[in-house]
């Protein structure tokens, strides 16, 4: 397979097209503009369509429409724009529509900044109104972003649920060599889609249940899907955890930076490892729980004020102390800063 040096945003867009994405609706916002720009050229080559929508609100409702007819569809945005997409994402979850959404995160709150950030962990994993989850995938390299985007379309179709790619501005902007695998060609039942009621009763795509019992039943149905995701879709990478006494919890680019710090600490004889959640929902609880009794301190590192740390703490239920190191506002932690944190904890643990 040919290797191509590609920018993250463009690689994500290309992966979507290769996975069969035929429609893209977006709205400009930094730092993800390369995705709509790429799609505006590429989709017309494969008989698809691109629309620059009037707002993120409209774009996300357009994907709701295209998903309703059973086509593979994607939108992308960045943090403040994602807030506007929450409405339609909730409707997609409620109406059980498969959609793929990419969030290239920037700093907040408010207009915030445009530099890399991970301050949308909450917005991604604890999203919009109503009881629902998106399946959230967090790549740490361009190759992984490509692979996860291709998986995202299958997962969305399998679960009839929104799948979110959550990446920081570094993943969106940097270039790395990538290869594109063949799509799986899995076939999914789309008999529910509104394609015209030829030889069948009309289909209705809907999230309104006015009878309380109906809505409760519907919520339980959705949560059976989330329970299945928790059983079958958890993805996590563990690095040098076999003998680790200290462990770092980090995802996305931060996990790569932490990995460099872990390598440096190991050369100093510090037994430290790394647990990198790849699915943020379902969260890899078991991967953390497994180390109760072995790991003495967990260090959660994020480009936020501490959002994923809540799920890490829930996973270990106070049986491992969890510390935090974060940079925000577009400040990216350096391997040296994380190494300093590791050294301090190593000293603490040895005392």
């Amino acid at each position: 397979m040919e290797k191509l040096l590609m920018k993250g945003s463009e690689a994500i867009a290309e992966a979507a097209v290769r996975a069969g994405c035929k429609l893209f609706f977006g709205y400009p916002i930094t730092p993800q503009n390369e995705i709509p720009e790429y799609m505006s050229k590429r989709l017309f080559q494969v008989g698809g369509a691109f629309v620059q929508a009037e707002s993120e609100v409209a774009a996300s409702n357009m994907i709701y429409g295209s998903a309703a007819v059973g086509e593979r569809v994607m939108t992308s945005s960045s943090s403040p724009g994602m807030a506007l997409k929450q409405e339609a994402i909730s409707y997609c979850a409620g109406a059980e529509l498969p959609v793929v959404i990419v969030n290239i995160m920037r700093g907040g709150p408010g207009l915030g900044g445009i530099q890399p950030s991970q301050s949308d962990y909450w917005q991604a994993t604890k999203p919009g109104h109503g009881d629902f989850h998106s399946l959230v995938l967090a790549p740490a390299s361009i190759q992984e972003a490509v692979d996860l985007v291709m998986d995202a379309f299958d997962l969305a179709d399998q679960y009839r649920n929104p799948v979110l790619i959550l990446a920081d501005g570094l993943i969106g902007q940097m270039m790395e060599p990538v290869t594109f695998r063949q799509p799986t060609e899995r076939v999914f039942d789309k008999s529910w889609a509104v394609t015209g009621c030829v030889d069948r009763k009309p289909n209705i795509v809907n999230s309104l249940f006015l009878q309380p019992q109906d809505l409760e039943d519907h919520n339980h149905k959705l949560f059976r899907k989330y329970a299945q995701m928790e059983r079958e879709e958890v993805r996590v990478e563990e690095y040098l955890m076999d003998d680790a006494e200290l462990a770092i919890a980090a995802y996305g680019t931060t996990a790569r930076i932490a990995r460099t710090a872990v390598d440096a600490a190991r050369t100093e004889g510090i037994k430290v490892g790394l647990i990198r959640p790849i699915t943020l929902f379902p969260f890899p609880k078991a991967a953390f729980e497994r180390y109760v009794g072995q790991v003495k301190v967990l260090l959660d590192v994020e480009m936020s004020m501490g959002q994923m740390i809540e799920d890490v703490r829930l996973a270990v239920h106070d049986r491992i102390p969890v510390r935090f190191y974060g940079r925000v506002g577009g400040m990216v932690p350096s391997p040296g800063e994380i190494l300093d944190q590791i050294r301090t904890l190593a000293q603490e643990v040895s005392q």
Partner: protein
Amino acid sequence: MQYDVIIAGFGGQGVMLIGQLLSNAAMMQGSRTVWMPSYGPEMRGGTANCTIIVSDEEIGSPVVPHPHAVIAMNRPSLDKFEPLLQPGGLLIINASLIDRKAARDDVDVIYVDANRLAEAEIGSAKSANMIMLGAYIGRTGAATPEIVKSAIAKKMVGKEKFLPANEAAIDLGMKIAAEQA
């Protein structure tokens, strides 16, 4: 072995381009590589910079606070990145546009009169960036000139007439690096 370099200059000096060429060359020779740009309003006519990492092993942090090398195409870039250079690192200064010498005495410095040489010897001031890239690979060996030239050829499909000038600029940069060794 890991090579990392920050390439910085004004928008329009082609710093992003030579960074991508270096990264492409690294990929073509089978190395791991990352190209990471600065982005945002600073790209609109201001200074631009990118970080390139070339490595035999999986690349962890794409962020390099203290690079092994800096290619400074203009004065603001030199002022910003010279202090961050690792001791023993490599500093390549575009002497055509930078009116000062290196302040550090613990780094290896190459002065390249890139803009003037590009005009005088290559016939186009636009080749200044390629001369700088030639000097970098000449001194570090992060990529071979042959592979860099094929990366250029790949990038310039349809514009082959500019290829000889760019190849000559790479060779010239390598020559300068060798002369100042």
